[in-house]
């Protein structure tokens, strides 16, 4: 038979486990590169603190598109369009196979990526090409040009900075 003190410890342990589970279920992660935590649920409200991609926040309340969250001991408001229920994972880390597929020419499209997707019911495009309707035939040459068009991220940063700083 256990004494009352042990019962209290047991119950306390139970409560801690329940709280831990609830807390884990309400975590959200910032997906935008940077975003301000606002004092009020408005874009023009004062900034409580700057958040960056990957910051984890705890959901406190919801009001339309706005979520009240707690982060680093502070509470504030964020639009839910900047958050997700999973940590951000970069395209490079997530899907090397996708990148491989993008680099291949349109004639060599049976990459591991296409096969992998096909196993989930996404049969590769051979059947599309067989359809024979000229106006429905995919233009892979243009797609390839679109996928090969690259912009250096430093040039994009400079492009954005030009507007911020007001000088070309």
């Amino acid at each position, binding site marked *: 038979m256990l004494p009352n003190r042990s019962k209290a410890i047991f119950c306390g342990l139970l409560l801690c486990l329940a709280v831990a589970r609830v807390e884990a279920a309400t975590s959200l992660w910032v997906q935008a590169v940077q975003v301000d935590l606002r004092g009020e649920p408005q874009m023009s409200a004062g900034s409580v603190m700057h958040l960056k991609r990957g910051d984890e926040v705890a959901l406190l309340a919801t009001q339309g598109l706005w979520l009240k969250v707690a982060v680093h001991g502070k509470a504030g408001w964020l639009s839910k*369009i900047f958050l*997700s229920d999973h940590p951000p994972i970069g395209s490079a880390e997530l899907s090397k196979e996708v990148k491989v597929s993008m680099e291949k020419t349109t004639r060599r499209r049976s990459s591991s990526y296409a096969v992998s997707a096909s196993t989930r019911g996404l049969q*590769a495009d051979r059947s599309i090409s067989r359809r024979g309707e000229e106006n429905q035939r995919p*233009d892979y040459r243009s797609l390839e040009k679109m996928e090969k068009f690259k912009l250096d991220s430093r040039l994009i940063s400079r492009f954005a900075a030009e507007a911020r700083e007001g000088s070309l």
Partner: protein
Amino acid sequence: MKILFWIFLSSFILFCSCSSEPKHADEEANKSSLKQNTEDEVTIGREMAARLFARFGNYENTKAIQYVNFVGRTIADQVGRPELVYRFAILDTADENGYACPGGYIFVTRGLLSKLRTEDELATVLAHEIAHVNAKHMYQTIQAKKKITWTETLARLFTHGYGDLGASLSMIVDQGLNVLLNSGYGMEKEFEADKMGITFAAAAGYDPKALTAALARISKSGETQVLEKTHPPLQQRLNNLSRYSSENALEHGLIPLRAEVLKKRFAKFKLALDGSA
């Protein structure tokens, strides 16, 4: 009786501990699921993109494409889903419209570009399409069937994915193109993309009210048939945008120097666009 109580309590605690998966396992499961969904999205998106190019033609104007990509990537790099690569192209048609395919393949038409007057307007139009991709509007509509049996999976692996089993990509792409070109996403998703779009544009430093200006101009011109075929009536969109902007105090402090930079850049773009038209 007390023994039964303690057995019950211990079992409950044990259940709680076991059912709480370690954080690492959760993260791995999330990553794996995200990878699978992203692969599906990109597979569908690129096939739809290839079909849009075939239907309308690719407007191959390097300077114009570069500018559209600079503006689009300025927004997507700030607020886009980090697991995707966002790409922008121009379709060679006088129709005024924009299209977002799953996986980050985004299009604007030459006709729509000719109607725009500022970089802020272009930014809000592209942000609307980025919002469709971020919210997975198309992917949710035409999602591939999820439950595939083990035998189907094995059969596809042995045939390198070319087996005639299950939902085929061509059917999904047909369905997606029908949504893009005929039925549209529906009012709810379009209004959501408008709201998300102007919020994204504002977060990237652009004037969120520019979408209203662009849509009002198209509405006034009377050339609304193509756009309204797949989108809600322009007047309704304008009313919703106005309400959302005031409710959320979406404002933008235009500094004269910034306006000058954007004006010069957009003038160069228009020159490139008109020069080869």
